[in-house]
């Protein structure tokens, strides 16, 4: 590890560039490697990349400044990011971060002057069931305690390399607490894929001899793909990322697209705070996910899949690359899969700390090596997606489910669930409950059932589907979670009887303010206005007048924002005003509008400059 001052472009940067074939589309991947090597993007690197990749310098710098895990200033030899989800906060992450800063003698968010260490906050790292969590040099630390913080401070000061830190600090558990039919056991690798291919007819022995393309092979693939698509339709599978679009329709659109070079993208950006199912799937069911992508490749006629993973899961890199390698060796990926005419391979792309990249069009931009800014909705990715080619974008869980559907059949899958939400769903339960972890239920499960199983029935409220989902109180615990009633990405954050829901609302509004990409005004300005209103109430300066303004801002954001982030960012506030009005009214010290800042304090500087203390040198907060 070098500090920022000793960068030799030729020696350090060129090998990274060469590894990525000087492809401008790999800009983000190259920057991530540079960041990991230098803990910053050295100024020399920006110029060199612009030159070698033939990109304008502003493009390179624009990408560096967009992603929160890339930085232009040196972040220290040891970079510690505390996860700042509400579940981490309820488990005391703020106190732990402050304690660590105090021990290390470093200011939060700043690099220590000797360049040894920096301590920062980041959005949820997907370890909500085993928090408080943090990342150290992009590797997860779980179950932090004051003792561990002491130990970590000593390790940092003692310049102990990360490899020698206690393994237990880095332990990530899958914690699958309940499994239903779909995820009871991982499928045997290859079973689902073979089933999909055999729907096209027998795989002939003689094909293995001569791998040259032939009409017979082509027809075999065509037929198989068409039959598997029928199974996906029969399963009535809907996207697991939250929007619930019918997977069959999406796949068919790409299958029938006129353009070739189609792509299959798997969205493992999983940035919704409180969500960690993709992490578990990629850990224990990676084969199923890759198999689902390969089956999709078979159905839509694509040769290339890309898995886009958030960098918080960097520790899974060797594992994932290993699974891909094994599948290639086993003939389940690559050319002539299972001796048929199917060619398909998968590549992994990494994110760099941007919630918005979970939004499909932003993710596509990010994979293209650009800033992750959502583009306009039309043309849809199925017509013009990655590199303007027809593209399927599905969630990790959707692909895993598709693999199971191929193996077991659509009717089998559709047996579970409700009228409009077939099958089962993974739910990430965290917060104030005895058994946080992953639970698989048929769609239609009530919140109360989940709370009972997880041991959190005394909850005063719960956030269903993450901050962009729905905040519910006990009177709604009997509602069913499914697309027709209470839709969800599969997240349940439980707020126990002693919690203050206002803290959750504050956490979520700060989260959206930080994660807004800044493209459209309603979202960029709106998220900041809302976060400021929340702070105003926190200081006791809020009044009913402000709540009216909040509703107005929320309405503008909901109706005028460019993408889902802005459209949903006001929900925690509007939900809580409706369902937990007390958290707002108990903070109102006045019924009249008052300023959001200390008015008399605003005169302090002038008082000290003039030495005045007379009555006219002061202001009351409320009109006298």
């Amino acid at each position, binding site marked *: 590890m070098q500090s920022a001052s000793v960068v030799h472009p030729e020696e350090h940067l060129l090998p990274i560039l060469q590894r990525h074939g000087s492809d401008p589309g790999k800009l983000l991947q190259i920057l991530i490697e540079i960041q990991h090597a230098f803990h910053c993007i050295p100024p020399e690197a920006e110029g060199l990349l612009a030159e070698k990749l033939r990109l304008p310098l502003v493009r390179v710098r624009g990408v560096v400044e967009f992603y929160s895990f890339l930085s232009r200033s040196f972040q220290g030899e040891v970079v510690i990011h505390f996860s700042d989800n509400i579940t981490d906060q309820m488990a005391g992450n703020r106190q732990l971060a402050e304690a660590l800063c105090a021990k290390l003698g470093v200011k939060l968010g700043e690099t220590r002057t000797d360049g040894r260490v920096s301590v920062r906050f980041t959005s949820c790292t997907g370890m909500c069931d085993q928090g408080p969590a943090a990342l150290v040099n992009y590797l997860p630390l779980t179950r932090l305690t004051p003792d561990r913080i002491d130990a970590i401070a000593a390790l940092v000061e003692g310049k102990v390399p990360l490899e020698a830190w206690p393994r237990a600090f880095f332990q990530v558990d899958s914690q699958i607490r309940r499994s239903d039919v779909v995820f009871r056991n991982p499928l045997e690798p290859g079973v689902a894929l073979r089933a999909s291919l055999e729907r096209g007819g027998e795989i002939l022995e003689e094909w293995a001899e001569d791998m040259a393309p032939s009409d017979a092979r082509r027809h075999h693939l065509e037929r198989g793909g068409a039959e598997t698509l029928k199974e996906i339709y029969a399963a009535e599978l809907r996207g697991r990322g939250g929007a619930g679009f019918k997977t069959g329709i999406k796949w068919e659109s790409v299958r029938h697209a006129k353009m070739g070079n189609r792509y299959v993208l798997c969205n493992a950006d999983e940035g919704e705070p409180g969500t960690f199912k993709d992490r578990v799937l990629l850990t224990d069911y990676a084969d199923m996910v890759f198999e689902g992508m390969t089956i999709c490749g078979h159905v839509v006629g694509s040769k290339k899949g890309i898995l886009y993973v958030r960098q918080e899961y960097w520790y899974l890199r060797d594992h994932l690359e290993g699974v891909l390698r094994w599948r290639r060796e086993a003939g389940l990926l690559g050319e002539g899969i299972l001796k048929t005419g199917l060619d398909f391979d998968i590549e992994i792309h990494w994110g760099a700390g941007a919630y918005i990249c979970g939004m499909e069009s932003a993710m596509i931009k990010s994979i293209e090596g650009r800033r992750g800014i959502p583009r306009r909705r039309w043309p849809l990715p199925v017509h013009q997606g990655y590199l303007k080619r027809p593209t399927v974008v599905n969630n990790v869980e959707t692909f895993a489910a598709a693999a199971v559907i191929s193996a077991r059949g659509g009717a089998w899958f559709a047996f579970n669930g409700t009228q409009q939400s077939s099958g089962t769903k993974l739910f990430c339960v965290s917060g104030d409950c005895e058994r946080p972890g992953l639970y698989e239920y048929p769609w239609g499960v009530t919140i109360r059932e989940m709370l009972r199983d997880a041991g959190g029935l005394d909850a005063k409220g719960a956030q269903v589907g993450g901050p962009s989902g729905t905040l519910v109180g006990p009177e709604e615990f009997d509602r069913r979670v499914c697309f027709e009633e209470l839709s969800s990405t599969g997240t349940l954050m439980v707020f126990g009887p002693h919690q203050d829901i206002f803290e959750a609302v504050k956490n979520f509004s700060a989260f959206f303010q930080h994660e807004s990409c800044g493209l459209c005004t309603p979202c960029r300005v709106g998220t900041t206005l809302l976060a400021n209103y929340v702070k105003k109430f926190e200081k006791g300066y809020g009044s009913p007048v402000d709540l009216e303004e909040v509703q107005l801002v929320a309405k503008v954001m909901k109706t005028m924002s460019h993408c889902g982030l802005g459209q949903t960012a006001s929900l925690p506030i509007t939900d809580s005003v409706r369902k937990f009005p007390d958290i707002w009214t108990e903070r109102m010290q006045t019924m009249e509008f008052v300023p959001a800042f200390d008015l008399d304090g*605003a005169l302090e500087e*002038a008082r000290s*400059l003039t030495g005045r203390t007379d009555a006219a040198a002061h202001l009351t907060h409320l009109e006298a």
Partner: protein
Amino acid sequence: MAEKLKVATCSLAGCFGCHMSLLDIDERLLELLEVVQFDRSPINDLKHISQPVDLGLIEGGVCNAENVHTLREFRSMCKILVAVGECGITGGIPSMRNSFTLKECLDESYIRGMGVEFAHIPDDPEIPLLLNRVRPLHHIVKIDHFLPGCPPSADAIWYFLTELLAGRDPSLPRELIRYD
């Protein structure tokens, strides 16, 4: 004849440009005076609002303690309070000092400025103390309507007033808030 609508106006940290624009409605002023009666306003030089009024028009942001008092007087006396022009709505030109500390600003004017003699920061109690930042009106009191422009054109002001007088929502049509 129905009782005339009572209107008060003032300029806080502004340049009076918005008031000039009000005068720019020209002969329509006579028409306006048929239906409104001015209370406190630079037009008649009344120093305080004498009675509760229907409409208050304020240009300029809030830069000192006196501005705060004036704004509060308007808020308590006006049924409808309108922020007129860029400075009232965002702080405008005066708020460019917000990127410096107050000390830096005063030092520049009274200590290090060219030609300054007897350098000291004025501390006479008659002079209102400056706030550390210039604020838009809605940071201090509740504002009911915003009339944008720098200044809002005479037509925009006329449209706004006549719509309000007619009891309609005074949202300006697009052509009156286009500036390019």
